[in-house]
């Protein structure tokens, strides 16, 4: 965990890397999140000052997009596709199984901070659904057994 002086210094470095870029706010927020795992509250005024924006504007942008997190996610992030093509292949059923196996509903993080469950709307894997992205790794043709295997690999249990 970094202290706030270190956070500020790192954010300044990121801002420096993006100097002169047209429309730099999204790339900056992506870089800050890649660094800290979320967009720390204390980074917002620093970013705002550098881009000559108000803090509210930066907050408004950050909170508009599903990708940016105000708080860290669990150590593992399981995103299951909920879009139509995956639904046609049983995504609702498979998601129901995953929610039960993890004991989590959408957007929840386990109490021990090990895993976050999120919906995603399309990974472009529509001809091999149901699909998921788990810690950045893509999965297709999911069923209950495959979900269990993925969760076991992450040491997250999986259904009995």
């Amino acid at each position, binding site marked *: 965990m970094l202290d706030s002086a270190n956070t500020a210094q790192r954010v300044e470095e990121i801002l420096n890397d993006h100097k002169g870029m047209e429309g730099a706010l*999204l790339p900056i927020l992506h870089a800050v999140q890649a660094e800290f795992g979320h967009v720390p509250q204390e980074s917002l005024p620093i970013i705002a000052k550098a*881009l000559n924006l108000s803090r509210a504007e930066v907050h408004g942008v950050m909170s508009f*997009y599903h990708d940016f997190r105000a708080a860290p996610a669990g150590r593992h992030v399981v995103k299951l596709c909920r879009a139509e093509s995956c639904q046609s292949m049983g995504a609702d059923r498979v998601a129901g199984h995953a929610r039960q196996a993890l004991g989590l509903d959408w957007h929840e993080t386990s109490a021990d901070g090990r895993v976050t469950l999120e919906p995603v*709307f399309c990974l*472009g894997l*529509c001809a091999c659904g149901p699909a998921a992205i788990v810690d950045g790794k893509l999965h297709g043709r999911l069923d209950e057994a495959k979900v269990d295997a993925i969760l076991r690999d992450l040491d997250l249990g999986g259904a009995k």
Partner: protein
Amino acid sequence: MKIYLPLDSAAVALGADEIAEAIRAEAAARGVTVELIRNGSRGMVWLEPMAEVDTPEGRLAFGPMNLADVPGLFGDLAAHPKAHGLTAALPWMVAQTRLTFARVGLIDPLSLADYRAHGGYAGLTRTLTMDAPAMVAEVTASGLRGRGGAGFPTGIKWKTVSEAKADRKYIVCNADEGDSATFADRMLMEGDPFTLIEGMTIAGLACGATKGFVYIRSEYPIAIDIMTKAVALARAEGLLGASVMGSGKAFDMEIRTGAGAYVCGEETSLLNSLEGKRGTVRAKPPLPALEGFLGKPTVVNNVISLASIPVIFEKGAEFYKGFGLGRSRGTIPLQIAGNVKHGGLYEIAFGLTLGEIVEKIAGGTASGRPVKAVQVGGPLGAYFPRALFDTPFGYEEFAGKDGLIGHAGLTVFDDGADMLKMARFAMEFCAIESCGKCTPCRIGAVRGVETVDRIARGDAAAIPLLTDLCATMKAGSLCALGGFTPYPVLSALTHFPDDFHAQKEAAE
């Protein structure tokens, strides 16, 4: 020995990386030298991961590959349990007209030498002897229309930007392909990134723009990676930069990553997002062609539109225009998805009927059950029943049946689908993804979910309310998100009324 194995997201999601590792390990154990090329996908997703072994007769296809199938690639190929024969002779490949996707799956996506050997940069080379109006005229003559969904004539858009006076102009590629059932943009960027780069460069030269952006959704990590590498390679070879191919004309580009907002696939939201703002929709006019990125004239084109440009310049507008029907000219990469036996990407001239696509090409459902509905054009597209299977695939033809072809994605559902549930999902999705700028979309979608729930509880009086709400959303929304969400909702209601009445009868 040369083996091809896709790096395409679909192949990777089905284990291609593990198969690649196993091929290398097996080769090492046998002391065989293998050149393993990670290519784009040939589009037969049901065969992925699909390995191809290069032979003097051509490439032989094997798939779907499991780890246990790897050693067999080093033995008697004809006896391999997953052997399908020559890839080029497979029925799926033979019947296609691959213009935009000609190179996808054939070449090493990051090899410029490969790209050039297969006709790459022939189009751009030709443009170097043309002036801007002639280039724009060529695109207009080809009949190319925006492949992102709206179907606006690309040449007309380019003409507006080309003739606009400004100190800077931009080419923005919309690669925020968020519609379920669509993956053509992804496959093109992963399998043949230089085609998009060449298409954008031609757009830049034709319109007098010196800078391009590709806005790729964050859900496509592999496409982002390949595009980023390809841009660096093109720049290193002078194909991008201060003097494109030594012409003295400048064009360079940047890859940008979206942040999970579906609405940013709408062009004005995308421009706001690119500028570092909330991805809210802008009212039109002003058109982005006159006041786009940072207020400057901007071409916003879909990946497939731009990627179709090189072949138009390589082979000529007349050649491209020779394909298609009515006012839908050229080819369209169909993306066949959902509950289908044979899903994937199939590029063909416009004009096949929906039934031919679903029954013949896709081979019916994966589950083996009857087809109930096909959603064409993503979450904002209508659900088509079997009764409309004679509709030919074209912009006007689908509009005539209260639908749209959108980005040409098709999701097939078997008879297990509950169309009331799908209508509810359409409203729910709109509520989640609405940018919030206009009321019919922001509030209407929430009310839509509630109204569908009332119908589900057996309240038939809510049906006219839903129809009325859809009319308001259609007429009053600023963009296609609120304006087109009524398509799936009303088509489900119109074509599958039983699904909206069953609950009531059960309650009575």
